[in-house]
């Protein structure tokens, strides 16, 4: 079994970065990617932005470059989902029944959108956005004049709203929260982004949810819980995501909310044992970040597939070379989360964990122009977010060291 490959389940950004990291750290053996999508790894953020508004864009416009270190010794098994993991035998089974033995396993299966919270009665015209195929399908119906209703006002919902409004669609956003992006950016910045959306004609129905759908065979109208009825040709469901861990049920790993891992990104079993040859990376991984506290969390930001992938790659190389991993693990893992969002001409950039905050404070600029806000949990700085003012936002990178807790 010694020449079993490093098996990466999920041909994703996090999977790719892990493979690159393992090669960089000296692993020269075989690598197999097993991915449910038919596509090689690609970048998702443009799916709600450029690609969604640019007819003709496809995989080539968003594909990650495959670095020379991965040109050889890599097998791509795409369009096939993993269905089971046998930890004892070190084998993953895919949907065709084929068995994939591994020397080390990387779980990089990411998330999928939560479904419509009410019965869809099998109606057409209902969309979600996670994959390239989702984006191409949604793009084809976001025509000028289309009535687009977006359920959810997180980043994905707001970015789709901005793109659809720019394309000339009539856009309504329905959300349970008081202002858009409330959880991530707080009430101040959320209210300002709402104002900017409204200036582009987007209507908000906040504190609301869906009560019912009308139409046949496609959705034609939606009824909100307040009784308001909206014309609707396209309904986009953007109410958050669930981790893709069904294939790990019964494996003995702790998958109660994503895959629980230690500071070495090594999977932890329901009995608390660490599996030194199984790693989880990217959106699906749940780990503590000592910059903030000891609570293991899943964090859905674009820089973390890269951070977790690099880190797991190092450990995989050490583990497969038979080296002692303890010193590497003991170095700890404290990546600074970072995210950005583009809505109209507002280019938002944030560092830290803004959604742990209980208050935000405007420290530079003005909300209706360029600005920087600090985010606090009690009196601890946990995040910073800016519209524009890049150098100032970047200067916060080193300020999340949490010295009191170290």
């Amino acid at each position, binding site marked *: 079994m010694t020449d079993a490959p490093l098996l990466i389940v999920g041909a994703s950004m996090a999977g790719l*970065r892990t493979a690159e990291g393992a090669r960089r750290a000296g692993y020269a053996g075989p690598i197999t990617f097993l991915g449910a999508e038919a596509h090689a790894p690609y*970048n998702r953020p443009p799916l709600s932005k450029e690609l969604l508004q640019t007819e003709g864009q496809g995989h080539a416009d968003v594909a990650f470059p495959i670095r020379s270190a991965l040109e050889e010794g890599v097998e791509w098994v795409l369009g096939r989902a993993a269905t089971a993991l046998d930890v004892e035998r070190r084998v993953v089974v895919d949907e065709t029944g084929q068995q994939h033995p591994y020397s080390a396993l990387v779980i990089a299966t990411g998330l999928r959108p939560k479904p419509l919270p009410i019965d869809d009665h099998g109606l057409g015209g209902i969309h979600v956005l996670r994959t390239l195929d989702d984006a191409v399908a949604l793009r084809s119906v976001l025509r000028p004049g289309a009535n687009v209703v977006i359920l959810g006002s997180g980043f994905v919902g707001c970015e789709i709203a901005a793109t659809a409004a720019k394309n000339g669609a009539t856009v309504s956003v329905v959300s349970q929260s008081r202002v858009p992006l409330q959880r991530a950016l707080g009430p101040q910045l959320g209210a300002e982004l709402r104002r900017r959306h409204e200036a582009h004609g987007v209507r908000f129905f906040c504190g609301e949810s869906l009560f019912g759908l009308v139409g046949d065979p496609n959705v034609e109208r939606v009824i909100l819980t307040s009784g308001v009825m909206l014309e609707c040709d396209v309904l986009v469901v953007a109410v958050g995501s669930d981790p893709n861990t069904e294939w790990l049920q019964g494996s003995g790993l702790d998958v109660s909310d994503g895959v629980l891992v230690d500071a070495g990104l090594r999977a932890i079993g329901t009995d608390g044992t660490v599996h030194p040859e199984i790693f989880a990376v990217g959106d699906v991984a749940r780990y503590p970040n000592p910059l903030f506290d000891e609570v293991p969390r899943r964090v859905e930001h674009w820089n973390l597939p890269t951070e977790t992938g690099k880190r797991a790659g190092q450990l995989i190389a050490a583990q497969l070379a038979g080296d002692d991993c303890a010193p590497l693990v003991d170095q700890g893992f404290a990546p600074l989360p970072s995210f950005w969002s583009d809505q109209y001409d507002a280019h938002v950039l944030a560092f830290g964990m803004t959604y742990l905050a209980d208050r935000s404070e405007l420290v530079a600029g003005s909300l209706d122009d360029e600005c920087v806000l600090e985010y606090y949990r009690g009196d601890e700085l946990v995040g910073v977010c800016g519209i524009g003012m890049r150098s100032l936002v970047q200067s916060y990178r080193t300020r999340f060291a949490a010295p009191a807790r170290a």
Partner: protein
Amino acid sequence: MIKITVDMDKCQHYGQCVFEAPEVFQLNADDKLEYKAEAPDDMLADLEAAADVCPMQAIFLSKE
């Protein structure tokens, strides 16, 4: 040498690249990106790291 190209239509001047390879990428006084078009081969790892963290995936590297 490694040749560096940034698609300035894509670049939103986030400055993430600056953190990974400050010898090559800088934000100027107007918060706009400035970069060197060439760098020695021994900088490859840093340059790849910079390309990886670019939110717009606007950085392209090639061998000269």
